[in-house]
């Protein structure tokens, strides 16, 4: 009757977070696409957050070395001011990834909270929440984004993430609500009601754990959406430009007319590739996660 009986001791394998992670990696290993995606995501996260700690930012211009093609000194060439492109790629990931991560976090929290409330309470509350989300869903996002960005002029990436989340949550709300509605009819949820375990227990202990996979997948997809949105508005110059990011590289490439120089090919291509490869990694990871989480394919 000690903690060992509960599997809390070392002798039992109550799947703790560590054991879960090991199991997760093991099932990922059997899906090459997912593994590549996972490695890609880890690579870009390290590149964006650890890279800047190792490589100093190079800000000095060198007009004699504009638009150099790749060489050993500049593996990805140089930009319109003769700065190293690789250096900018290393430094340009952090903001964009942070904004995407925060935007996805905020929008997921909003959608899950509102979706769960709408489905659990139902009635007029449900109608109102779904109505609001429908409005957000139907307005053209880019135009609203442009207007909001113009009015608020978000300078920090947290502010930008909040604006993005404010638009993105509506896409996730309906699926979350549908999930909760279907989970609510499950027999184990009915049993919990009959045992009078309370609404908090029902939502957080019975329902949410069963939506884990779903939420993770939508979170990642929300990140991809946020990256496109952020790239878009920065590229169009709709938010104040400061610092480094892949999107800002694209903005300058366009603003400085890099497109008209034949040798600027690598400069333009590098941020596009960085964004595309990161997005591709996320999407491959999602497709593998869908497999792994699908209970019909899971065994043991």
């Amino acid at each position, binding site marked *: 009757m000690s903690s060992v*009986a509960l599997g809390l001791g070392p002798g039992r394998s*109550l799947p703790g977070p560590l054991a879960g992670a090991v199991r997760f990696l093991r099932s990922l290993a059997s899906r090459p696409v997912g593994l590549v995606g996972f490695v890609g995501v880890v690579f870009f996260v390290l590149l964006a957050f650890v890279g800047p700690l190792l490589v100093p930012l190079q800000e000095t211009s060198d007009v004699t070395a504009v638009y150099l093609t790749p060489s050993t000194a500049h593996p990805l060439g140089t930009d319109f001011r003769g700065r190293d492109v690789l250096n900018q790629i290393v430094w340009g990931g952090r903001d964009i990834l942070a904004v995407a991560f925060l935007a996805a976090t905020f929008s997921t929290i909003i959608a899950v909270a509102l979706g769960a409330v709408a489905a659990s309470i139902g009635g007029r509350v449900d109608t109102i929440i779904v109505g609001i989300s429908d409005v957000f869903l139907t307005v053209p996002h880019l135009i609203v984004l442009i207007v909001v960005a113009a009015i608020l002029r978000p300078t920090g990436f947290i502010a930008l993430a909040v604006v993005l989340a404010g638009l993105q949550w509506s896409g996730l709300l309906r699926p979350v609500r549908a999930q909760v509605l279907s989970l609510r009819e499950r027999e184990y949820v009915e049993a919990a009601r*009959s*045992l009078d375990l309370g609404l908090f*227990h029902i939502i957080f202990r019975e329902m949410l754990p069963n939506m884990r996979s779903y939420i993770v997948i939508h979170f990642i997809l929300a990140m991809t959406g946020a990256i496109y949105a952020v790239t878009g508005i920065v590229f169009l110059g709709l938010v104040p430009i400061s610092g480094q990011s892949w999107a800002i590289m694209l903005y300058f490439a366009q603003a400085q007319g890099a497109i008209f120089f034949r040798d600027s090919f690598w400069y333009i291509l590098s941020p596009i590739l960085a964004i595309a490869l990161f997005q591709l990694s996320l999407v491959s990871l999602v497709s593998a996660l869908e497999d792994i989480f699908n209970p019909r394919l899971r065994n043991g």
Partner: protein
Amino acid sequence: MSALLELDRVSRSFAVPAGRITAVDGVSLVLERGESVCLVGESGCGKTTTGRLLAGLLRPTSGAVRFEGQDVWGSSGAGLALFRRSVQLVHQDPYASLNPTRTVFQTLSAPLLRHHKAKRGRDVVSKATTLLERVGLTPADDFLAKYPHQLSGGQRQRVAIARALSVEPRVIVADEAVSMVDVSIRITLLDLLLALGTEFGVTIVLITHDLAVARYFGRAGRVGVMYLGRMVEMGRTETLVGDPAHPYSAALIAAIPEADPTITRGKERVALRSAEVPSLLNLPPGCTFHPRCPLAEPGLCDTAIPALLPLPTATGLGSRDVACHVAQRERRPAAELLGVG
């Protein structure tokens, strides 16, 4: 002293895309402490809805549900919660009734802690162990840390029963609780439920489509037969199975295939006038069985709804209730009138 749980002319209707159906129509049922009662019938007869009405999971459209004499839907929220806890439902599908993300211990400890039946730590572990031992899952230590997918169907059903017991219910409604487990272990599950009745005075209502199961389970109790939302017959199990009073019960019993080649191939059948079951959306007037009933009389059965009344016999009132005009008038069970059983 009032009955433990009572349905008093309870009806429940649902809106469906094609209109409104009455799944349960004026059903009355009185449950005493510690008794075992079976509800049998075919799909669409309303037995599951009746079970959910008994468990307080559905509110009746009309009629009253009384628990220890109190009208439960008239009382305040707290009274309803207490009533719901006192009547626990064991579902049919043990694969759906346990949360796949929670261990057996988590499943059992939540209600124990919530309702202060146990204190955190050692106490709740020992209480959960006791519950598992009570449902025959021993050694309990082997099961506490398991997830539902690591258990067999029979073991899951036992966990579901243990979870129901965690709140010390007075009534357990088992809805087809053995129909999805393997044939070879059904009897032990039925015995387990029956033992709860004899040992702890819990009233058990078993809902089943299987008359053989009903006969075994209800051998010391009563069986009610339902047809299209109404209770058509209710009586002591052996009497009802051996000598059904309603023509529908008689037809069912005569039709059941049995696990004995000689008996089953030589059974006398009741020839029904129609094989078609009327739609709940468009029920026939009078007795809903009359379009199929070999005993039906025009002008009688298709006009008035028969009430569920004790069947009079030559010696006075019999021990069972039947809702059939013809059997009541002839003072004889339908089985006799049809020449079967």
